[in-house]
Each structure stands twice: as structure tokens, then as C-alpha cells.
């Protein structure tokens, strides 16, 4: 009797090609490979930046030169040669674009293939989108609607020109240039990204969204995102990432800084689907990202991430719970297959009183992949009544992959309450048979069970994203019936 086993499924997963592996032939302007002070200056000059910005970059570069690439994560890879990367690449017909009509049609076609038709999103989803291809923001939709509320949402390069005081005040305050190797590199060479400011008391009426895409070969992408939610404001921010299939390893070293002032709330959701490399483990994006949020009094930041792509993921979206009563949340699904390696998790730094954090992490490993959760819960001596709940579940598919959990828990306050739980399991034979008996084949059954396993996190995503995320998890849609 033939049986569709998990092995068969894995086999099939292997042969499913990366759907976003196409390359758009847009003429682009790319810097020569290599990195030195002159390149940093040139990037700054290209962007017509003020002197303070140039100095800031140079300082970061000098720090970076002294730093060593970290190797504590549970990942192994050939270290990139930082002189073999081009640090700037922009689609060429680079005049300023005010409406979508002016965007290069090829590029629009790219977006279509990505499944993000801008028009459609505009109409249906009420999402304002900033799109960064390689290094440059291409179009920011909905500028006007947002402008009426005083919301600033624009490429960070423009923000440096138009709102230098705001950028200067906040840039690097959550992730200092000296923070870590990749953050320092990013600070020196970032070429674009998004900037968002929500004024006091304003609820941003729509989801803000950025799509990142690496298009050009031999380039790295170093975007920088800065979100400032002023007192009592609210914003939900989405981020999506894709890259074409290439047999080389491309480097993505982004920095995201979130600042939630008193009573503000930021929801930051990521669906990361960078090219993961092929079934033999060659190619794929190295995703080394620093994401951190600062929460002032009563502020709340939720990180939600669905990580399915990248050859290597090194990423720990964190919350510094500085203000009293502030809240940090981290919801994550990380799926690894073939030779992918993910080392991801969060840091919750409780400094203020009555601070609360929740960590829900779901890791799914298949193929020959390695999936690690690494997290820190730190309760400072003054953080009276801090609360943390962490749950890390791993699902293993097949016997060639690994699931690892490395939680660090540090407490210096006796009123802290911390609960950490972790489990590892596989899909039960009985569960599969039960589904089969009801006429659901094994592949579908696995998708269903994986969907259930990931549910707590999927539920945290905004609708538009949940759809894409589920598609990425190869899971049928959960319907609206019932």
C-alpha cells in the first residue's frame, strides 16, 4: 500500500521552486564593489546628505572596522567578503516619482509578480506602501492622505532632507552605531529605508507597509527603518521581503528602530521571504538584522514575524521596556527547510515598574535545516512587578534537521514573575490518520496541523499579511465560516 509520508512531503517541498525567484531587467546604477571611507562618503554625497549625517556614517564605519563578525549564533556559513559587495544600487530612471504612473512599468510588473499590486492594495487594503528595491525607495503611496493627519511616511533619504531635526533626534538612539557588527555596517552604508512619524494622539488610519526587494546581483541591501510614535499615537507597520534566486549569497543587514513614546503603541509585522537558497544549500540571502524598540511609560510594542526565507537568519527583535507599565510582545513563526539556518528570538529588557512581556515562538524545521530560538528575558533590579510569559514550541519534520532552544533568563528583582516553557514534538501518526480518515490527504493534513501549531502567531498578523503568511506556510486558508 503506498503511503504518502512526511518524507514524500519533504521531497515535494524540495522540488517546489522559490516562487519569487525572478529577476527584473531594470537598468540600474550600481557602485563598484568594495568598502572604504570614500565609498561611505560617496553614498552620503549621492544622497545629498547634510554634514552631520556624513559624519555619523563615518563614525559608524570607523567603529565597524574595529569590530569582529559575531560567531556565537548557532549558524555556520562562509563569512561574507565585505569587499566583494556593492554598497549602492538604484534602479536607474531615477527621477523623483510622485505617483505610481511614473514608476518604471517593469518594476510594477515585478510588484505584480510579488503579489502586491499597488492599486489593488490601495483600494482594498487601505495600506500605504513604501517600496525599496535594492537600495532605493521607489514609491510611497498615500502620501497625501497621511499628510492630512500630520503623519510622515517617506523614504528615510527624503526624511533626512525634509525633516532633518526629527531624524537627527532619533536615529541611532535605540540601536547605537556601536551596537553590533552588522548594525555598525548598516549605519555606515545604509542607502535607504523608511521613516515614519505619527504625531501626538494620532491613530494612523491605515496599515503602513514597506516591501524590500534585492534585485541586482552582487549587491547588499542595508536599509534603515525608523518609526517614531509620539505620545498616545498608534501605528501598525508591515514589512515584506523578497529577492530573486541567485547562486551567490546576498547580504541583507537592516536596522529597524522603533520608538514608542508615552501611551503609544506600535505593531510591527514582518513576512520575511528572502531567497533561501536551493535544495543543495547554495545561494540564498544572509539576513543579519537588528531590530529594537524603546517603550516609554504605558507604551506597547508588538513584534510579529513570519520567517520562511533566507539561507541564514540572525535576528532578535527586542523591546527595551524602559517606562513603567510598558508592554513588549514577540510572536514568531520560523520555518526552515533544506539547508536553511535560523537563529532568531527576542530580548525583553524590563527596566520600568509593572512591565509586561509575552514571547510566543513557533519553530518548524524540515530537510537538513537548523532552527534555533535564542531569547533573553532580563528583569532589572528596579523593575518591580515585572511579568514575563514565554512559550517556545518546536516541530520537527524528518530526522535530519534540528530544533534548539536557548533562552536566557536573568532576574534581579524578587517581585518578578517569569514563566518559560518549551516543547519539542513531531506531527503524530494518529493525527494524520484521523485527518486521512476524514478524506484529507497527508500533505493537506500536515499543512492543517502546522497551521494549527502556528495559529497563535498567525492570529497576530493583520489580515492582508496573514493571507500571504499562510500561503508561505503552504497552508490552506482558514475560512470565515463558523
Amino acid at each position: 500500500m503506498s503511503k504518502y509520508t512526511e518524507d514524500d512531503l519533504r521531497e515535494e517541498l524540495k522540488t517546489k521552486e522559490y516562487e519569487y525567484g525572478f529577476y527584473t531587467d531594470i537598468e540600474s546604477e550600481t557602485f563598484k564593489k568594495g568598502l572604504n571611507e570614500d565609498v561611505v562618503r560617496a553614498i552620503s554625497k549621492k544622497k545629498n546628505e547634510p554634514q552631520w549625517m556624513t559624519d555619523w556614517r563615518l563614525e559608524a564605519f570607523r567603529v565597524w572596522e574595529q569590530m569582529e563578525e559575531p560567531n556565537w549564533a548557532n549558524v555556520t556559513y562562509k563569512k561574507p567578503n565585505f569587499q566583494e559587495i556593492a554598497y549602492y544600487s538604484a534602479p536607474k530612471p531615477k527621477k523623483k516619482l510622485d505617483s505610481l504612473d511614473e514608476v518604471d512599468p517593469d518594476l510594477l510588473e515585478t510588484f505584480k509578480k510579488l503579489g502586491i499590486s499597488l492599486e489593488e492594495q490601495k483600494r482594498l487594503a487601505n495600506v500605504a506602501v513604501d517600496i525599496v528595491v535594492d537600495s532605493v525607495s521607489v514609491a510611497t503611496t498615500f502620501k497625501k492622505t497621511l499628510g492630512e493627519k500630520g503623519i510622515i511616511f517617506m523614504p528615510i533619504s527624503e526624511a533626512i532632507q525634509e525633516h532633518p531635526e526629527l531624524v537627527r533626534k532619533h536615529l541611532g538612539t535605540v540601536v547605537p552605531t556601536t551596537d553590533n557588527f552588522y548594525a555598525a555596517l548598516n549605519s555606515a552604508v545604509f542607502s535607504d529605508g523608511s521613516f515614519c512619524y505619527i504625531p501626538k494622539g494620532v491613530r494612523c488610519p491605515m496599515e503602513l507597509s514597506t516591501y524590500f526587494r534585492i534585485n541586482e546581483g552582487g549587491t547588499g541591501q542595508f536599509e534603515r527603518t525608523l518609526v517614531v510614535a509620539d505620545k498616545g499615537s498608534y501605528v501598525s507597520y508591515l514589512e515584506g521581503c523578497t529577492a530573486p534566486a541567485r547562486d551567490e549569497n546576498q547580504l541583507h543587514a537592516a536596522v529597524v528602530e522603533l520608538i514608542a513614546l508615552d501611551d503609544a503603541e506600535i505593531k510591527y509585522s514582518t513576512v520575511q521571504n528572502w531567497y533561501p537558497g536551493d535544495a543543495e544549500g547554495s545561494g540564498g540571502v544572509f539576513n543579519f538584522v537588528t531590530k529594537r524598540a524603546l517603550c516609554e511609560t504605558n507604551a506597547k510594542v508588538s513584534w510579529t514575524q513570519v520567517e520562511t526565507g533566507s539561507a541564514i537568519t540572525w535576528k532578535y527583535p527586542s523591546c527595551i521596556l524602559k517606562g513603567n507599565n510598558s508592554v513588549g510582545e514577540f510572536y514568531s513563526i520560523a520555518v526552515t527547510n533544506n539547508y536553511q539556518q535560523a537563529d532568531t528570538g527576542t530580548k525583553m529588557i524590563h527596566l520600568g515598574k509593572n512591565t509586561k512581556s509575552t514571547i510566543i515562538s513557533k519553530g518548524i524545521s524540515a530537510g537538513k535545516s537548523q532552527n534555533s530560538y535564542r531569547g533573553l528575558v532580563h528583569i532589572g533590579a528596579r523593575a518591580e512587578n515585572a511579568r514575563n510569559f514565554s512559550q517556545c514550541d518546536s516541530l520537527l519534520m524528518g530526522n535530519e534537521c534540528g530544533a534548539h532552544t536557548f533562552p536566557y533568563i536573568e532576574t534581579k528583582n524578587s517581585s518578578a514573575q517569569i514563566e518559560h516553557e518549551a516543547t519539542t514534538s513531531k506531527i503524530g501518526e494518529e493525527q494524520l490518520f484521523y485527518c486521512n480518515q476524514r478524506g484529507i490527504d497527508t500533505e493537506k493534513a500536515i499543512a492543517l496541523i502546522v497551521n494549527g501549531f502556528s495559529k497563535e502567531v498567525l492570529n497576530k498578523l493583520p489580515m492582508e499579511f496573514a493571507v500571504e503568511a499562510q500561503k508561505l506556510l503552504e497552508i490552506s486558508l482558514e475560512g470565515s465560516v463558523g
Partner: protein
Amino acid sequence: MLKIENLHASVEDRAILKGINLEVKPGEVHAIMGPNGAGKSTMASVIAGNESYEMTEGVIELEGVDLADLAPEERAHQGVFLSFQYPVEIPGVSVTNFIKTAINENRKAKGLGDMPAKDLLKKIREKSALLEIDRKFLSRSLNEGFSGGEKKRNEIFQMAMLEPKLAILDETDSGLDIDALRIVASGVNKLKSKDNAVIIITHYQRLLDYIKPDFVHVLYDGKIVKSGDASLALELEEKGYDWIKELV
């Protein structure tokens, strides 16, 4: 409809079923009784195609289709439904989502498209009313934290949704209180027609008071040792299984 001939099955090289013969015609209700460990659940699992059990000999046919080489879901598509003695829990998957997936997969096997949401909703309403299931219940994770009775009722609800040709109810009555038993039994009765058939596995007469069997079979040590009409169940109730053991 169902034809079982000389069915032998073993688990981990231990023979459990030792030559079962059974024929079930459309419109019939068969009851299978027998002491614990006789092999009743094993028989149900083998019909449904559970691969923990190895079918070593014999024939299982449904409407002339040989089931032996079919995967469990293909048998389900043919119209076999098993109400499990111990339904499994699937965390995070709601009853609704599960049944929707099951229905659409069964339709897909028949070359039909997905059932329109409107129709599905209507059907869910109808069937949950039939089994007096609270709608809130439908959004809970499948069988997770369900009481014994809720699990069984949920099984019959799924049966109502899937409308199988052959339903095998494995100790569906255990864990049910008397009201729930009546609800489940009347549900089964309403679903019964001249075109489908039911096999009821049970220890007790009480379910058979509600669902009248046309035939009663006694399974003992992997074989059907006695068959009769509804009165056999009563006789068993009175004399106990020791009586059967003496027969063998």
C-alpha cells in the same frame, strides 16, 4: 455494500483478526459486540486503512471497489466514515476549519470545486442543530479539552456533514450521558437511509434501544463467533460474555 471475506490482520506481528466474514447491504444496521480486546476497534481501523495494522489476508470491498490498496483518505472518499473510539486532539485547528477542509477534499476527489461558503454555513447550521451542538463549540480547537461526550458528539456531527455511505461507530455510546445518547442516536437515525449503512460497535444494549440493528454479531478473539438478529443483543446483555466464551 461492504463485503469482508476471511479478514486477517496483525499488529507488530501479533495476529488480532483471525478470519472475519461480514456482509452489509445498503440500508442495514449491524451491531458488533464482544468483550474488551476482542478486536472490534482493530476491525474498524483495518476497514478504514490504519497502517499501524497489517492486513495479512482476506478481502475488503465497498460497492465492489477493493479497499485493500487504497490510502485512508481514498477510502474516506469512497464513503467510509469511522467514528473513533478515542478521537485525537489537533491543537489550533478549529472544528469548523477542519470540517471545511474535509468536505472540500472529499469534493475535490469527486471532481467538484470547493463548497460555497454560504452553503457550507447553512449545512453547518443545520447539522449542528440536529446534534444540538452549540455554535461556540465549533470555533474551539478540534477535540482539545473536549469532554468525552463532546468528542463523540463532534464525531457524529462530522459524520452528518460528510454523509458517508458506510459509517462505523466505535463505542460512540461510551462517555455519553442519557440525554446525549438520545441526541446522538436520533441524529444517526435521521441520517440513515436506504442507500447507506451503519456498523455500531458497542458493549451495551442501551444504544441499540435507540438504533435498531438488523443484525447483531459477536466478535471474540478475532472471529465472529455468533450472529443473529436484535434479540441476540438482549440475550448477551442477560447472559454476559462468559456465555460466549463457553460457546467457543
